Every structure is written in C-alpha cells, then in structure tokens.
C-alpha cells in the first residue's frame, strides 16, 4: 500500500505544526494566546476526525518497507493521543509563559507525532526513532519555564533519565540485531523460541527504556520530581498520552516478539512481579504525599501497574483490557491534572492544603474533581471501575488469581488516598472559613476541556461495550 493513509495523522500533524509556526510572527501579542491555542486544539480535533473518517485500517499490513504496521492497535492509540493532545492544548492556554509561545504548541504537536509513530512502529529502528521523537519535545516542555527552578530541574532530570534508559534500550536493540540479524518485530519470534539467559538479558535491556516511559518499577523515580516541577498540563500530558504510547510499544513488542508459549509463561511471571511492585510501591508512597502533583505522580505509577496486568496474561482479553484501561485512565488522569492546573492557577499552590474548602469556592469544579478521583479509585459509574474489572477478569481468566488479588488490595490503598484528597475538597475549610470571599473562577478553555473529559469518563464507565470493541479490535491485531 503506497498511499499516505497509514500516516495520515502524522502528516496532518506536521502540516499543523508548520502552520502554527508560520502563523506566529504575524500575530499581535494579545491575539497569540487565543489564536495559537484554539488553532492547535481545533487542528488536533480535526486530525482526530480525519483519521477516524479516512484512515481506518483494514487487515493488518506492514507498510513503508516494514517500518510501520497499519492496524487497529496503532489506530486506536493514535485516536487516544490526538484527543489527549487536543485537550492538553486547551489546558496550555492558561499557563503563563507557555500560552503565548508558538514553540509550546509546536512541541506538543511534535511529541504527539512521535507517539503516533510509536503506536504503529513495527521495526526496532522505527521504535527507537519514534521514542526519541516523543521524548525530546517532552524534555523541553517539562523544563519550559526557564525562570522556575523546579521546572528547569524537572526538564533536566527527565532528560538525564530518558537519555540513560534509552541508551540501555538501544544497546538491547543492537544485541537483538546481532543475535537475530533482523530488526523487524514480526520476525523476531522466529528467533526467540526458548526462555534462556540471552532472552532474559535482551528483555531486560529493552524493558529499561520502555519501563521508563510508562514509569514501571524500578524505573519510576523520575516521575514525582518531573511531574511536580513541570507545568501542570505538561505533567498531565506526560502521565497520560506518553505513558499510553509506552504501553502501545510494550504490547506490540511483547505480543509480537515473545509470544511463544515457553517464553510468555516465564516472561509473564516476571512482568507480573514487576506489575505487583509497581502498584504497591506507587500506592504506598502516594499515601504520604502532601503535594497533589506528587500524589498524582505516584498514583500514575500505580496505574501503570494495573495496566500492566493485562499485558502479563499474554492473551487477547488481557491486551484488550489494557487498551481499555489506558483509555479510561487517559481521560481520568487528564481531568485530574486539568483540575489541578485550574485550581493551582488561582491558589498559586499545589499543596493539598490549598484545596481546603474547594467545594464551597467552586462547587462545579469540586464535582469534576470528585468524578476524576473516584474514577481513579475505580468506582462506578466511572470509567475506572470497568477498566479495573476487565484487567482483573483477564488475570483470573489466565490463572493469575493472585495478581488479581494483589490488584484488588492495591485499589483499596488507592481508595484511601483518593478519598483523603476529596476530604480536603469537601470537608475541610479554609483558614478563616471565608470561602465566599475566595471564589475560584475557571476559564473557558478549562471548562470546555473538563466538561469533555467528565462526560467521557462517565460515558466510558456506563456504555462500555463500544469502547471495549475498539480495544478488542486493537488487541486482535496483535494475534
């Protein structure tokens, strides 16, 4: 197939980026924020609609010399990224120093483009390039507030960690090529047929880079510091779309290259242990956090563990449940960070204490927060509940009852700290109890973004069948 259909979203994103950049010099200062922001968001939405209408894949097919695979897995993830990016663009519009610069929107688009490629990359070289294409703009975005020490530190830390792990991963790739003579993901499983030391070594090296992207234990250390320092909407984008992109590669790599029974059974066990540690470490440390961004960072580590449960099973239901989980998680966590950004803009702080009396200051924002946090905790009728049930169901189906139990116990720990946050919002009062004098207004882009997300969370949680079919179609493309 020699059309541009398989890379339609990427092409449109590129055009959009160029348009933003060339628009920039002609804009007056006061027009920059609205024009750049709305154009980016609308452009991303348009890309979403365009690929939904025109770029639907058929039978899975390798394109462009085997570099990409045009299938439902890549397609589903690309849709997720586009939505996440569009909403992040809305959230960017109210961050000072970020909202008037064409560069920020361009970097967002570039990272999204990289993610789209990650989702469909079918060759190790392409995987590496796509990951770097995603990471480098994100390093810059995380450290974008040059005058803010924390942001600079965040960007720098992110870059150091990213560079280190991606080198290790690249080393792993070179070993794979050395041993097998191929870089195509879909030829690798011919060469990895037994679970020997070589396979373990290669898997661990490769996993280092991917585990960093999705913040899997023991490569999670960067997340809290980076999220805390980065501009909040950037942290939201990092914790959702970027993480989902990592999972897209993990799903494709493991289910394509290591799917033989002898390997997957053993590898599954190793990954199950990693998932357990990730969930547990993330949740337990989150319990003690007093800064909401750090709390969400640890919670997002824990969520990587839950999503990993589906991968562990190496089954179609497992893969589908991971994709579904990521969908619910993207909507939910993006909403959580959006609320934090909106509230932080007024209160000027990310301490839990600054959330005291929020429900009296802006009851609608408090309701949105309730929805987001209960969805994170896995309560119906929100997306997080069904997503969790599906990954646990996949675990039980494939004989990992213990992993489901671990997940269940972890979600109890999770519930505790999510409820603690809601306690600040609904129960505690501001010192002086004069919330009436401290209204918390929310700007229009945030209202739009949050309404979309809250509706999305509820729709995914109540009418889950269509989304699960999408996830299942994506999973089917792996087998």
């Amino acid at each position, binding site marked *: 197939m020699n059309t541009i259909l398989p890379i339609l979203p990427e092409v449109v994103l590129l055009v959009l980026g160029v348009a933003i950049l060339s628009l920039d010099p002609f804009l007056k200062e006061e027009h920059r924020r609205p024009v750049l922001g709305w154009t980016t968001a609308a452009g991303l939405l348009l890309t979403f609609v365009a690929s939904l209408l025109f770029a639907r894949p058929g039978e899975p097919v390798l394109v462009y010399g085997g570099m990409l695979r045009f299938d439902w897995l890549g397609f589903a993830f690309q849709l997720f990224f586009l939505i996440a990016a569009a909403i992040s663009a809305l959230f960017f519009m109210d961050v000072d120093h970020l909202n008037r610069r064409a560069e920020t929107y361009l970097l967002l688009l570039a990272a999204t483009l990289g993610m789209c490629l990650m989702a469909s990359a079918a060759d190790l070289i392409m995987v590496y390039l796509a990951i770097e294409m995603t990471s480098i703009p994100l390093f810059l975005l995380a450290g974008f507030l040059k005058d803010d020490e924390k942001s600079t530190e965040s960007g720098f830390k992110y870059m150091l960690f990213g560079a280190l792990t991606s080198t290790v991963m690249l080393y792993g790739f070179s070993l794979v090529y050395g041993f097998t003579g191929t870089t195509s993901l879909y030829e690798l499983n011919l060469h990895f047929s037994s679970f020997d030391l070589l396979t373990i070594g290669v898997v661990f090296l490769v996993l280092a880079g991917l585990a960093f992207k999705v913040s899997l234990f023991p490569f999670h250390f960067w997340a809290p510091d980076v999220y805390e320092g980065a501009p909040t909407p950037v942290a939201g984008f990092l914790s959702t779309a970027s993480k989902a992109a990592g999972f897209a590669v993990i799903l494709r790599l493991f289910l394509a290259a290591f799917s033989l029974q002898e390997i997957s059974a053993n590898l599954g066990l190793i990954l199950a242990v990693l998932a357990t540690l990730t969930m547990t470490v993330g949740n337990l440390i989150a319990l003690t956090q007093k800064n909401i961004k750090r709390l969400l960072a640890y919670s997002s580590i824990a969520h990587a563990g839950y999503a990993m449960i589906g991968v562990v099973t190496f089954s179609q239901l497992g893969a589908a449940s991971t994709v579904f989980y990521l969908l619910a998680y993207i909507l939910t966590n993006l909403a959580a960070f959006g609320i934090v950004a909106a509230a932080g803009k007024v209160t000027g702080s990310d301490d839990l204490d600054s959330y005291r009396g929020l429900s009296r200051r802006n009851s609608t924002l408090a309701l949105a927060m309730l929805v987001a946090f209960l969805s994170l905790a896995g309560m119906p009728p929100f997306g997080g509940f069904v997503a969790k049930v599906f990954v*646990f169901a996949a675990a039980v*189906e494939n004989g990992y*009852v213990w992993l489901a139990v671990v997940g269940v116990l972890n979600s109890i720990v999770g519930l505790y700290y999510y409820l603690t946050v*809601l306690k600040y919002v609904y*129960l505690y009062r501001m010192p002086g109890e004069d919330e009436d004098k401290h209204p918390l207004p929310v700007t229009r882009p945030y209202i739009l973004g949050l309404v979309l997300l809250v509706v999305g969370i509820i729709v995914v949680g109540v009418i889950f069948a269509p989304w699960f079919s999408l996830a*299942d179609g994506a999973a089917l493309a792996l087998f």
Partner: protein
Amino acid sequence: MHFPILSVIVFTPITASLLIFLYKPEQKKAVRITALAAAAFALTLSTIVYALYRRDVGGYQFLEEYRWMPFLGISLKFGVDGMSAPLVLLTGVVMLTGVMISWGVDDRPREFFGFLFILASGVFGVFASLDLFMLFFFYEIAVFPMYLLISIWGWIKTREYAAMKLTLYLFIGSVIALVGALAMYWQSGMHTFDMLQLEHANFSPGFQRLWFPFVFLGFAVLGGLFPFHNWSPDGHVAAPTAVSMFHAGVLMKLGAFAALRVGIMLLPEGARDWHWWVMGLALVNIVYGAFIASVQTDFKYVIGFSSVSHMGLVMMGFATLTREGLLGAGVQMFSHGIMTALFFAAVGMVYDRAHTRDIPKLGGMVKPLPVVAVGMIIGSLVSMGMPGFSGFVAEFPIFLGIWKTQWLVAVIAAISIVVTASYVLLVVRRVFFGTMPAELEGHIRPTGRLDTIALVLLCALMVGLGLVPSLMVPWVQTGVQHVLTLLGGAG
C-alpha cells in the same frame, strides 16, 4: 412488552440527582422539592411492583433485559422475586421518609440530596439486578456516596474516622467478593454474568468450598456480620439522620441480600459446607450485639449496636438453610429496615432539639415530642419481637428454623430477646419519660409536619405487617421456595 418499571425505579433517583446538580447551589427549595417528588415517584412505582408481583406464579417477574456488553455476556437484566420485592419497597419507603426528615439540611443541600440519590439508585439497582456484573456495579455505586454523606454532614467528632473506616471495610469486602465472582464467571465456562444461568452452573464441590467464604463474607461485611461489624455502629452514629436511616435501614440489607443471592444461591454446596461457621458468627452478632447495646450511654450507639444484633438474626436465618429460617430472615430484612429507620429518625429528632444524645442527660421528651415517643415505643415492641408487630412475624420463624437445626443455638440466641427488651425499654423510659432536665426545659420545639408524616408512615407499616402478616409472608415464601430448590438441587 410491558412498561419497564424496574429500570424506571432504578434510574429515577440518579436522574433526579443529575437534575439536582443542575440547580444553582442557592436554589435550596427547588432542590428539596425535586428530591421529594422523585422519592414519592419511586415509592409509588415500588409499591406498584410489590402489589402486582404474582405470588401464585413466583419466580422472577418484571423481567427486563438489555444486552449491554454481549462480548463478555454482560446484560442489564432486572427482575424481582419474592425476596427482593419487599426490599425494593423498603428502599422506596426509606428514601421518601429520609427526604422528609432531611428537609432541614441547610449546608449544601444540593450536594446532600444529589449524593443521597446516587446511593438510592445503587441500592435499587442491587435489589433488582439479575446480572452479576451489574450487581457489583450498583453495589459500588451504593457504597461511595456514603463516604461523602457521612464525612461532610456527619457528627463532627467522629465523622472523618467513621466515614473512612466504613468505606474501606465495605470496599474491601466487595472487591474480595468481586474476585470470587470473576472466578465463578470463568469457572462456569458459560461466558455470562446472568445469575439465572449461573444458578445452574453446577460448580464442583471443591470450587464452591473454596470460594464460598470469600463471596459470602465479602458481602456479609455490609450485612454487619461479626467480626466485620465494627464499621457499622461507628458509621451509624457519625452519619446524619437520613443517612443513618438509609444505612441501617437499607444498606445493611443490601449486604445480607447480596450474600444470599450470590453466596448461597450460586454456591449452595459451599453454603452447606460452611453454614455452621456462619451460624457461629451470627450467634456472636446476636448475643454480643445485644449486650454491647445494653451498656451504651449514647442513644445512637444503642440503636447502632441493636442493628448489629438484629442483622445477626438475618444472617442466622440464612445460615439455617431451612424454610422457616429463610422466611423469617426475608421478613426480618424488611421489618428491621423499617424499624431501624424509625429509630434513627427518632434519635435524630431528639438530637436536633436537645443537642445531646447522652441518655442520662435526656428525659421527659414525651411532652414536647409525643409522636416521636409513640414511634419509639412501637419500634421497641417490634425490636423485642412482640406479637402483633412485624418483629414477631420475622423473628418467630427464625427461631423455629434455628431450633430445627440446633436447639442449643436457639436457646443461646434467645438470651438476646431478653437483653433487647431490657435495654430498649430502659432507653425509652429514660429519654421520653421521667423529668426533663432543667437546661432542656423550653428548648424542645415540636416536630414538623413532614417529620410526623414520616413517623406515622413507618409505624403504620410495622403495625400493619404485624397484624396482617399475609401482606408480606406469601411474597417471601415464593422467594424462599426458589432458594430451597437451589439448595436441594445441588445435593
């Protein structure tokens, strides 16, 4: 195709809740009127369901099924049997009386009624669901608003602690049961969550023995079974009045009902293996709960522990696995629900006026609050199982069932009746009769019209059911028949 009455009942409260959230926070009056209208509507429909349930036919009626997720065999399937029809009615009654009694909530009433109605939808959903997945879905919906309702509007001294404790206990129980349910789903090999089909899954005895404790106890946490009852008195006491009513009146039945429906009815063989254990635990509930209640000095804790004791009777009735025991337990769920709702309403009214619940500091309330006093007396008579009141209709068969299974247990459990009689009468005497402490004199305003209506409605149900047991017993009997078939069918 008939009118989808059950789904209308289930979704009425949550729709009302959405509507309420559309109001502005200042529109308190509109919020209350909407809440009252929705509650009245739901009660009307529940009464219709109850009245139209055909006892001569039995089984599940008013069936509705919507394919929700065919891929995993999840459907939105509603239906009631003789066991659940009274509970749907109970929920309607408690919902309406709860709204009436909470008329005076002035701190963010929009949020209060909004959350309360989400909870109500969850409760209706569990009672009406015939799909295991949806049952969990609604079960969790019924649990989480509790946290907010207690922690925001509860008694300031213990609300944070009690709300968190309650939520964690219930959540732990339900997720453990969820793992059991998933195990059942895959083990059955039928790829359906439809409980009517899972009833015939014929799980192997080993499987049933392994999973029954998880599933049954997971739900029994909400039913207040010892040693997992600890959350409940604290929760009852900390909760605002309407929430205590909901909580003790309906939510605990939710736990017991789900333990029956999922634990005993889907894993009958497991129930037979474990029923002595459950009886033992329930016996502790009954006797220990009654003794603890008798030494409390806080009016609300007395009622809270009496609920633990009475719910023990429900669990005990289930555990006997006999016709009499199950029948009594079915009626007890309704009777205790109404009774305890009345108790908490009464406690709330006294507390709102006297600003204390310390029994020694109260007295002589009969003069300013005659209706409340009469309600409390009727409730006490129900609570000790006096003939002529609904408590007798419920407890007598339970004791028959226990006797049939093991007479010694019946004798020990009967101690509780004596203890119950002594403490409820004592409390009523101290709070409502005697002399009113000087500092309360003149501060007790009379009850409002809505309060009175609510109390009268609750009392009428208890007396009516006590005098005419056939208003409920035939319903429950058809439900029991089905449970017995399942229990017999497996053996």
